[in-house]
């Protein structure tokens, strides 16, 4: 397979974008990535999106987005794997370039979530769980992660305060990210006093509802060396794995086995291990998710994820900074866009463009994107070329 480089990245504005239609949000991010790459030709494109049908009543998305991007006629593919749609779109784009089928591929992700209101968003997001055997009984997405949290706390002694420290850390990182939806710092006390959503998770343990898009332009590394004017970033590892989407069908209720398997594949492909990763963007849709994911990725031992944010291990300046962008928690979580936005953060960090939240000497970063309660997971490793 050909080596693949990321030559351009971009994001739209993220937040409650009442004045902007979904198509413009996507095109805004795609144009930013295309301009950043300095290319004028796109061979093919991918659009990660979880459920535009439920959020805005629009399917057949890939053709629409290629048209509004002014590229009607190119092959365009919509990719869905719940909240891992963006990460999976990136993987499929990378495989298309790596295989030699296409040279320059645009990978975007988009979600417009605010139009349906809170109850509509709860319904749409819950379609990532088992409709007949989980959602039927009244469980919500925060509820499923709350059950993961209670299991982790009972089994490993993880504390309510440790969950809060994940939110505090990620909001601190996000306060240095001008593109974050909620670039504000929060305190442990503030998290613990915020309203309960599903015990023990409170509103400040949850990622927000976000409209937004992100995009990346990729091409063969050899071509990038000739055409790119930016510091080169290459994709060295990619892994993807699935699991049951019903949480109750897992043999271990607080281990994200798909994330673990995807990471093992990506590490093997890159020829590295967890200790070789300088920083990571992980899927902190809820505070407990970051705790379980850093265990699955091997950054900490099983059961010790709770201590990581509290001790500063995963903060900027710590041994392995996690979610320097602010994560889903502070930056926002337009579900289909999240996996691509993680690639944006990795690329900018590796180019040294991250300003106040720059990881010093960042040479190798990892992105982990997750669907549902871990029914799918995608892991990528990017390095300075």
């Amino acid at each position, binding site marked *: 397979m050909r080596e693949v480089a990321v030559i351009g990245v971009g994001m739209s504005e993220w937040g409650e974008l009442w004045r902007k239609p979904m198509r413009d949000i996507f095109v805004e991010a795609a144009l930013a990535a295309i301009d950043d790459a300095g290319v004028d030709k796109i061979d093919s494109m991918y659009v990660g999106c979880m459920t535009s049908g439920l959020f805005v009543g629009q399917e057949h998305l890939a053709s629409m987005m290629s048209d509004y991007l002014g590229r009607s006629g190119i092959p365009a593919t919509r990719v869905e794997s719940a909240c891992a749609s963006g990460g999976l779109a990136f993987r499929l784009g990378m495989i298309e370039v790596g295989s030699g089928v296409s040279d320059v591929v645009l990978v975007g992700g988009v979600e417009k979530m605010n139009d349906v209101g809170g109850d509509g968003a709860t319904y749409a997001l819950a379609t990532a769980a088992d409709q007949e055997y989980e959602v039927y009984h009244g469980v919500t997405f925060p509820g499923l992660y709350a059950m993961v949290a*209670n299991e982790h706390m009972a089994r490993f002694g993880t504390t309510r305060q440790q969950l809060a420290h994940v939110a505090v850390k990620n909001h601190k990182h996000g306060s240095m990210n001008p593109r974050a939806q909620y670039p504000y710092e929060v305190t442990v006390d503030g998290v613990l006093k915020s*309203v309960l959503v599903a015990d023990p998770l409170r509103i400040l343990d949850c990622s927000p509802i976000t409209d937004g898009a992100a995009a990346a332009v990729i091409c063969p590394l050899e071509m990038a060396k000739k055409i790119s004017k930016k510091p080169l970033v290459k994709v060295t590892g990619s892994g993807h794995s699935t699991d049951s989407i019903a949480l*109750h069908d897992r043999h271990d209720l607080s281990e994200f086995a798909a994330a673990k398997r995807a990471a093992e594949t990506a590490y093997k492909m890159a020829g590295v291990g967890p200790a070789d990763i300088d920083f990571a963007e992980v899927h902190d849709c809820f505070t407990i998710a970051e705790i379980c994911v850093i265990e699955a990725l091997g950054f900490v031992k099983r059961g010790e994820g709770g201590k990581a944010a509290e001790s500063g291990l995963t903060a900027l300046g710590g041994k392995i900074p996690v979610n320097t962008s602010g994560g889903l928690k502070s930056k926002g979580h337009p579900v289909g866009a999240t996996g691509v936005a993680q690639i944006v953060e990795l690329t900018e960090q590796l180019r040294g463009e991250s300003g106040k939240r720059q990881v010093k000497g960042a040479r190798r970063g990892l992105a982990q994107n997750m669907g549902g309660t871990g029914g799918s997971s995608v892991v990528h490793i990017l390095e300075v070329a």
Partner: protein
Amino acid sequence: MFPARYWREMPQRYRLEAGKCKRCGKVCFPPRLVCPKCGNRTFDTVRLADEGVLKTYTVIRVAPSQFTGQSPYAVGIVELDGGVLITTQVVDILLDEIKLGQRVRVEFRRVQEDGSAGIICYGYKCVPAA
């Protein structure tokens, strides 16, 4: 909810019907066409045990619209005797008296209402075992 979508799950929701693999004995709930353990495609229909242990739970405070009348309510994952795990509400107990590891029993209850004119949906919920 479209009536057929509700109706076709009734054997599971009303009678806890599961599929037991004829080759390896794994019990699947709901029934499947392929055994996830051994790949076999033939099953016997069996009924799940109606008692088990509460493995984890939460209290839903922000509920979907069909459940707002019940909120706050507890939902948990119960490991039924025999090893099958199900997601179900835990009822007939004060929310702060629920304990991980406690014994529960499955009962047939009303689960949700599909608005004022829609169908009433029934199924299993768990209550403390006597």
